């Protein structure tokens, strides 16, 4: 009898030591290799460049001051991007509010004039009410409504890209009505 108890206990021990041991170990290996892969793909790792040393003479300084007077494409893009107005939405809605028509016309004009050489990325966002797929879709539909409105005003559809961040990109983190209203929005970003 005793030997049966001992042998079954040993069998159980072997089985369970295998079982309980295995799962966490699997995670360890996965985590290590998984994380490595992510680190390799991290763009910040590629941005490291050797520091360039320049000798600045008086003549070069003059050249540089000339250069700064003229905006680079990137600087123009950033300046124009700041002029583009955010479109805000009502709770759980993706139609353009009447009080946002003015903003939209301004944006369409800028898109056709000052920003005509750039691509436009519309970023749809939602408030914190619900972190489901539905919220991402709502953000996307908001972007899509703005896109359609811009196209109707004469902006080339092929210049417009869309993305949704759901509730994961808030500009305001307080738990107030005003704050949530600020997060239900479509932002404009310019791309070269």
């Amino acid at each position, binding site marked *: 009898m005793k030997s049966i108890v001992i042998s079954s206990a040993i069998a159980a021990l072997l089985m*369970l*030591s295998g079982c309980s041991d295995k799962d966490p170990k699997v995670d360890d290996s996965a985590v290590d290799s998984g*994380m490595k892969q992510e680190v390799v793909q*991290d763009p910040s790792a590629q941005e490291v460049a050797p520091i360039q040393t320049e000798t600045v003479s008086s003549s070069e300084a003059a050249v540089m001051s000339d250069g700064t007077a003229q905006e680079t494409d990137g600087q123009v893009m950033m300046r124009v991007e700041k002029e583009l107005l955010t479109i805000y939405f009502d709770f759980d809605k993706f139609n353009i509010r009447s009080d946002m028509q003015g903003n939209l016309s301004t944006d369409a004009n800028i898109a056709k004039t000052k920003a005509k050489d750039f691509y436009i990325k519309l970023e749809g966002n939602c408030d914190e009410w619900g972190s489901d797929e539905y919220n991402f879709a709502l953000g996307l539909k908001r972007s899509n409504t703005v896109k359609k409105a811009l196209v109707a005003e004469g902006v080339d559809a092929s210049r417009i890209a869309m993305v949704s961040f759901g509730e*994961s990109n808030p500009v305001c983190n307080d738990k107030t009505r005003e704050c949530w209203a600020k997060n239900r929005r479509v932002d404009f970003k310019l791309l070269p």
Partner: protein
Amino acid sequence: MKILISFLITITFMFASDATIEVIKKVDSLPSLAIEDASVSYDETFKNRFFKSLVADLNVLSIFNVERYHRKVNYDASSVLVENKDINYVLRYKLSEDDSRALNLELKLISQENVVFNKNYKVSNTNVYMFVSHAIAYDINKFMGEPPVEWMKRKVIFSRMVDSQKSELVIADYTLAYQHIVVKGGFNIFPKWANKEQTAFYYSSLDEKKPTLKYVDIKTGKSKVIKSSDGMMICSDVNDDGSQLLLTMAPQGQPDIYLYDVKTKSTKKITTYGGIDVGAQFLGKDSIVFVSDRLGYPNIFSKSMNTGSVEQMVHYGKSNAACSVSGQYIVYKARESSESFGDNTFNLHLISMETDFIRRLTAVGINEFPRFSVDGDAIIFIKNYKSQSSIGIIRLNHNKNYLFPLKYGKVQSMYW
């Protein structure tokens, strides 16, 4: 009076197997269980932590009245502690650390002075102690002849927001006590287990030019790209054998549901409505349940993939934006109050597709991410109430909810 009683009894038997009817079990009728700690290694903090984990797991079984007193004893003592004399079951365990620093546990279950069950457990380090505790509860449940609680041993995968557009993917036990970050850095969301064995998972990466669905094999750590789409690219559900996926994609800025065949890599568009169709889940082999705003607000619908007929599944709740399906049951999240500062804004409800009954599963707070266990025995969810987030487990057939407070971070999405 007799007629009334017999009528009530008849009704009770008629609906006895329907989980949408609340089953009120008398707490007093459950057998009592006390735990005796005979550990010889580790400090008091760890001993307490392990004891608490075991009490929680045994409570979640919902088949015992578990005593919460942490009493120490000698493992080989011939009889149970005098305080536990009238207790139906006494679970005595001994934690010991061996030369390789592995955690060993010896266990015996004593009933009426007899050892009715014993088993030994071992894990390589103390960080994963909760898996031993879950394994013990699983075994005790099995020994008691209850339906298996496989979900207790399964892992949860979830995404957690750490900053604006920054998240990490985490693998955890069902109480989220054990957490292991598997993908760090970047904006990666909506993870889903790729198979029943939980050896691989899918997730959406928003770091690429277009939203991209990726697949990671946990054993090898290798990841590969499955598919990209403009606007949205989310894997909403994986079928039982892992051969088919339900995706939400938006190639022209229009979110719709697609069926993806893992082997042939072909996609088939399932929904064509011009509004929002998202969050699809398999309902049997030929149908899906999904979230749509086709009535002007988010609600739960089903669609046959053969005939294309659409049916509204839920008729209660102002905004029902998330659901999970198991057999004939749907658990869904409903917005109950338009008062944003009320204390019961989102609650979980259970409906049966065969009856008209609705059972409300939560009463207060913001309750979200409902997800059935694979066997349908339990529902996992996140509760936010009074600035505390917890993970919840609902035992449908026992009519009990259990909450485990979360350490930190906002959960973005969760899959069991």
